[in-house]
């Protein structure tokens, strides 16, 4: 059975193809369109999934959309009505936005793919999150907790999933919290207040939180009160996200927390104002963690299960995930590599396969590499045409060479196999470097990533030695598989791992299993043999404002315009020459003109 899952229209559109119960392709639209967090209908992603798998649209058994668009429209309309007359500005925008495209999903799919309308199916948003979390996790029975900004009405759901001996499976969502009461919206409101981009920069709030003290927890608790049944409710007069499109927080919110940060002012943690913003971040982070831990703990007591599957954008918060693991009573916590809306494409397809069609459960390969393969030939061709130093090495020699370069303090662009599905670079589209000095972190920030100083970099090491360098609690290695948990760096290693140790002594660890990314694993071993510390700094291969690179040529163009020292794709190694920085245009033109004159071009 061939099922295509689609998520689109709000943020981070994606497509995923499931054949006979197993995912075979999945990619976010942004990786192909090259527009970060591209929300548009993922035509390029769909085309790639189908073309690469050799499947024509008419061969699909079903196309599953990740939410019920009319129900979502109902929520938007109802909220506008409830906010009357304050919603008068938002109303035309919301109606045009929804009626312009978003509610006509069946027609859009039919017109783009040419599949009969009867083959277009829908799941609810949080059911897709739940399926993405549960059906990709290697567990038989698990509690499920999904939390994000909002789907149709639900913002948080709890329930459980099970795989039965007969081969069938089930997801039972027991209850939900409804919009506008939303942990995701609470966090996003602070994201906007702190001058960051909503639905994009929430992780910056988490990074900034480590620099602050949770001195405003009581103020945050005025925004979110716990209800008698163990849920929570937002005090809506502090917010405007449910009434206007222009701003997330109200004047009352500003009265409580002070003036918002101007997005164009850098955060200076030496100033009172900078520390206030860090304290705000620390306070909302603390409240988010406590609320999630409480809900997870109650769910564990209710279900008596040992495993928890976490889904939804909130599950990208690694600090909260680690606290859930430590304090909720669950022994293992599973977070998929794409817990956000992109992952819903995969979740929707799996949900349809297992639950709508009743197909028997199949083990899903436990890795995130479902995207396009890197083609080293296009890299070597372009690099040679540009006069770059290109080498093609045997595997052993390549790994030794790169380990040596990393030990010498070089920054390596590392492209290997299929690209990751989800927001994290987990070893196939990564920038790697030595994790030992804070100068390296500063260099990465300054020359390559062009990002805020307060944001940490993540380490990658092998599962076998992770515990030597990091305080990984029982079950923590599972969270660290897809970089979904933040754990303390052991104090004795903090100075040796300065580039990946956050200000609070923590790190968002990736503990790599040999089977998941064997080449990176081998590189870690080779690096460990040289330096005695098999740990590398692993950050996504992109620069600020751009999606993670996908094709070899995208890696190459990134390599050419920032301070990456080496680029590796397959067996090809490109080394930056001192003179090989892109020349100014005038110089490039002069060279080309002289070349034309001499008949070279």
């Amino acid at each position, binding site marked *: 059975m061939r099922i295509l899952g689609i998520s689109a229209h709000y943020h981070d559109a994606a497509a995923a193809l499931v054949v006979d119960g197993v995912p075979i392709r999945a990619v976010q639209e942004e990786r192909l369109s090259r527009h970060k967090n591209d929300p548009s209908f993922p035509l390029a992603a769909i085309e790639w999934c189908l073309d690469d798998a050799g499947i024509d649209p008419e061969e699909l058994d079903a196309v599953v959309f990740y939410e019920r*668009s009319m129900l979502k429209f109902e929520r938007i309309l109802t909220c506008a*009505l409830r906010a009357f007359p304050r919603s008068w500005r938002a109303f035309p925008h919301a109606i045009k936005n929804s009626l312009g495209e978003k509610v006509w999903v069946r027609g859009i799919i039919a017109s783009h793919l040419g599949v009969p309308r009867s083959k277009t199916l829908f799941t609810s948003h949080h059911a897709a999150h739940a399926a993405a979390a549960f059906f990709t996790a290697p567990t038989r029975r698990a509690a499920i907790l999904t939390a994000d900004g909002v789907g149709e009405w639900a913002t948080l759901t709890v329930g459980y999933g099970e795989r039965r001996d007969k081969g069938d499976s089930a997801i039972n969502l027991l*209850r*939900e919290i409804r919009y506008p009461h939303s942990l995701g919206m609470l966090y996003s409101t602070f994201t906007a207040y702190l001058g960051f981009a909503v639905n994009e920069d929430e992780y910056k709030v988490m990074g900034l939180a480590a620099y602050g003290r949770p001195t405003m927890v009581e103020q945050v608790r005025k925004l979110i009160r716990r209800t008698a049944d163990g849920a929570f409710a937002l005090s809506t007069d502090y917010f405007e996200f449910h009434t206007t499109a222009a701003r997330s927080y109200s004047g009352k919110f500003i009265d409580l927390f002070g003036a918002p940060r101007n997005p164009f002012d850098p955060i200076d943690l030496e100033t009172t104002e900078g520390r206030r913003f860090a304290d705000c971040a620390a306070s909302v982070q603390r409240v988010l963690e406590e609320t999630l831990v409480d809900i997870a703990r109650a769910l564990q007591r209710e279900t008596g299960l040992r495993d928890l599957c976490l889904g939804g954008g909130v599950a990208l918060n690694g600090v909260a995930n680690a606290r859930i693991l430590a304090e909720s009573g669950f022994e293992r916590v599973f977070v998929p590599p794409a817990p956000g809306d992109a992952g819903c494409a995969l979740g929707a397809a799996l949900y349809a396969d297992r639950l709508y069609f009743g197909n028997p459960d199949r083990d899903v390969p436990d890795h995130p590499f479902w995207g396009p393969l890197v083609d080293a030939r296009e890299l070597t061709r372009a690099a040679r045409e540009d006069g770059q130093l290109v080498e093609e090495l045997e595997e052993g020699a390549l790994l030794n060479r790169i380990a040596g370069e990393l030990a010498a303090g070089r920054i390596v662009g590392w492209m290997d196999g299929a690209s990751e599905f989800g927001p994290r670079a987990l070893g196939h589209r990564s920038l790697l470097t030595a994790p030992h000095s804070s100068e390296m972190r500063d260099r990465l920030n300054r020359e390559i990533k062009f990002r805020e100083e307060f944001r940490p970099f993540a380490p990658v090491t092998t599962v076998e030695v992770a515990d030597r360098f990091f305080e990984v609690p029982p079950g923590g290695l599972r969270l660290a598989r897809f970089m979904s948990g933040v754990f303390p760096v052991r104090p004795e290693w903090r100075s040796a791992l300065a580039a990946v140790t956050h200000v609070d002594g923590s790190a968002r660890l990736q503990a790599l299993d040999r089977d998941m990314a064997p080449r990176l694993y081998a590189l870690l071993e080779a690096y460990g043999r040289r330096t005695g510390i098999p740990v590398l700094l692993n950050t996504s291969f992109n620069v600020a404002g751009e999606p993670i690179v996908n094709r070899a040529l995208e890696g*190459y163009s990134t390599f050419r315009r920032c301070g990456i020292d080496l680029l590796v794709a397959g067996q090809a190694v490109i080394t930056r020459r001192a003179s090989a920085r892109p020349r100014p*245009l005038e110089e490039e033109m002069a060279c080309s003109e002289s070349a034309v004159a001499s008949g070279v*071009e």
Partner: protein
Amino acid sequence: MLTFRVFAMATSFSAYLDRALQPVHHWVWSDFDRRVRKLIAFGEVEGDGGRDILRAAELTADPLLRRLYLAHAIDELHHADLFRKRSAALLRSRRAHSSGLFNATPLPGGHGLDDLKIDGEPDHRLLAFLHVAEKAAAGRFAIYRDVVNDDPLTQAIFDKILRDEVFHMNYTYTQLARISPASYRRYVWRARASRLWKRYLRIAAALAAIVGAVMLTLQYFILVPPFAWLAKRAERREKSGWVPIPHDRVESATSQY
């Protein structure tokens, strides 16, 4: 030939119009908030344009064009950085004037090269488009450079970018002539026509959006109130906290509700 004349008149009219509108530009740039907003918008547009050209560098099969596009993209991204830094500096220098500037209104947008489709487009079309766009930008930036003479730092940025734009304008033309020696003039005219058409579409879309917003706002105040009253009454009856999901609820596979 007649078509060419019409376009020539249209484009020279556009340049004339820009010059005639110099007092308007003066007025726009004389206000602090508008100035900052303009600079931020330019930063965004240059950044998006830079990424579009970068995409072109990744897609072209022509090695020389790849190198030129890459250098061009780096220029554009640098311009974006200059605009961003200048607007941030202005905001810092006169914080009092900026209150409310970014709180209530979404930042001005605009995506790069007039939403030009890069993937699958031939180089000659992109070069022609870039040439026309850079030429127009150079004309505009020359005017802006002149009207911000009370602000030497902003003026210096326009001056620097103007020089780059002129160079971009020239290299795109030279390269277009290289890859399409027989028909490069035609491509330039076609790019001009396409630009005019897109400008018309933008204006038409903006007008339609205004008309739509007015109609919907009228409906909001005329039709919505009774439904709003019902919605508010229903909201009051809702209790916060957990909402149980019935165990026997059957998820419909085909319903959008």
